[in-house]
């Protein structure tokens, strides 16, 4: 295992469609075992960048390497990372236990009691143990997201991508989800990449971040979000972290 190499390396990424460029010159590293957050306002391309990182889209140019391997869209076979989509993306016709067992029975030779033990343990881990027999349509949005995280962890990946994990959740459920993310990172040593703009979550879980700006078509700041909040001189970044338009207004001399 190459401990010194970043878990994810992104170099000179250019994302767009035809002549329309969404972002360019995007370069950053994500260290192994850390919680990394991709920030930015609505429509700046956070989720699009995530789709490129997980290989669902191909960049116009640039390099994405996970564990020093080739581009994610070229990976075949056993998935190398887990992904939580915004809505949880659970299969509606399967119970939570069946949803979780699916990657296990598809990609491993584990059968029988170990499958039941592993699925139940992951559901317990996200606090959904009692709901193993429920269909996704029978549980709440927050529970679906937690079940989505549990399913993403079934193949014991060392990398998790979470798209807006706490969006639309009440503060208590969002806090519980944040605590779960901290546990996953600290106790299981999983590298976690989160797309979000929920400030309380960012300050609680993020060890480092990048801030994307639609106007700048790329990264405008990077580092520890708490330091960026307190020390950044970039008006957009200050405005983003303080939820105040005063910084932007001042910078435009209005």
């Amino acid at each position, binding site marked *: 295992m190459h401990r010194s190499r970043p878990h994810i390396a992104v170099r000179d990424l250019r994302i767009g469609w035809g002549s329309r460029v969404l972002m360019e010159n995007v370069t950053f590293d994500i260290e192994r075992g850390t919680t990394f957050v991709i920030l930015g306002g609505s429509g700046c391309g956070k989720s699009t960048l995530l789709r490129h990182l997980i290989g669902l889209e191909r960049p116009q140019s640039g390099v994405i390497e996970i564990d020093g391997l080739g581009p994610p869209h070229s990976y075949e076979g056993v998935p190398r990372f887990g992904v939580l989509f915004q809505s949880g993306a659970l299969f509606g016709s399967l119970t939570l236990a069946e949803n979780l067992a699916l990657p296990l029975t598809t990609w491993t030779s*584990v059968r029988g009691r170990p499958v039941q*033990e592993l699925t139940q*343990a992951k559901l317990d881990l996200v606090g959904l143990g*009692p709901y*193993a*027999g429920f269909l996704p349509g029978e549980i709440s949005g927050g529970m679906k997201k937690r079940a989505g995280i549990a399913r993403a962890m079934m193949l014991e990946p060392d990398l998790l991508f979470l798209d807006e994990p706490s969006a639309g959740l009440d503060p208590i459920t969002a806090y519980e989800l944040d605590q779960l993310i901290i*546990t996953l990172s600290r106790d299981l040593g999983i590298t976690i990449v989160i797309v979000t703009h929920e400030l309380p979550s960012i300050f609680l879980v993020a060890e480092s971040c990048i801030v994307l700006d639609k106007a700048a078509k790329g990264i405008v700041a990077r580092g520890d979000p708490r330091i960026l909040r307190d020390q950044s001189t970039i008006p957009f970044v200050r405005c983003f972290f303080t939820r105040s338009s005063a910084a932007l207004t001042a910078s435009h001399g209005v």
Partner: protein
Amino acid sequence: MVVVQADREGNSARLMLAGQFDLDHAVTTARELASIEASLDGCRVVELDLTGVDDIDGAGAVQLARLLDRVEARGPRTHVLDEDNPKAARLIALYRQRLTDTPVVTARRSTILGSLGSSAAQLLRSLTSALDFIGHNALAAGQALTSRRSVDWRSLPQLLQQIGADGLAVTSGANLLVGVIIGVLGVSQLGRFGATVYVPELVVVAHFRELGPLVTAIVVAGRSGAGLASEIATMKVSEEIDALRAMGFDPVRWLVVPRCIALVVALPVLTWIGDLLALLGGIVATTSLTDMSARAYVMATADAITPASLLEGLIKTPFLALAIGLIACGQGLATAGGAAAVGARTTTAVVLSILGVIVISSLFTLFYAFMGL
């Protein structure tokens, strides 16, 4: 490689673990743990020695955590020796600590007999809600005339295009082939009595009055019924219907009325065009198989066509169209759940639409027979 050895000393046992306790070795681990578990009978203390564990992930930790749970459930105390492998110990502790502490809630899953009883009980409710939906539509149609802005009239041309123009090729093809089939059957059966001269009349009577409206409606039910049901069902599960309600729109007036109007307008037109193509099919079949000329066939057809034969068929098409529209839209609006529910409601809509079309067509046939038409 996974090795689990039990070092037993009196009432206590030490489980010496070695190797890789990860997902790749989960099957071996399960086998090793199962074989060692039996040897722990009679112990009062079981220690788990993690010194030899080279690698461990969540899967291995879960298996070891559950082993300790099972051992403790039988009485012995357990102890994890974590000095040399704190990561493994922490993982095992995590999965032991995050155990379901509330009883497992089982979603109610019914048996076959239970489903049967539930379906029977549901039948009455379904009939009531169907009547309620029809009544709501009748009311909505009236309200649509007085409050014209409550209906999405702008979608009407698009719906006419989708249901009528886009479906023309399929309904025309089906009717043409049905005309050919009636012609071929007429020639083969009536020809035995030297009565092929009556084939044009057979095509007119059979197709104009019965098969034309029926075949066209079945094709439209399969094509447009499925489309309407899945469209509205998707709107329902993505909360678009709730958004309409929240904005003060009646979904029935906004969505169902224009769709039913489009069907009521399009189906008679499609049926009429289908009738013409069925005549063409009859001509092709008859002139190919007999020595009857196309001119003689057309003359005989012209004699057979009466306003009554044309009207008896076309008059039922608005009713068939309404049945398709109400069933498809009703099923769409009744959708609850996710993607699977959309598929299930679409299937039900198509099946019920086709069934409804056949039932209504049969009722008209009985009515005509009763009236001596």
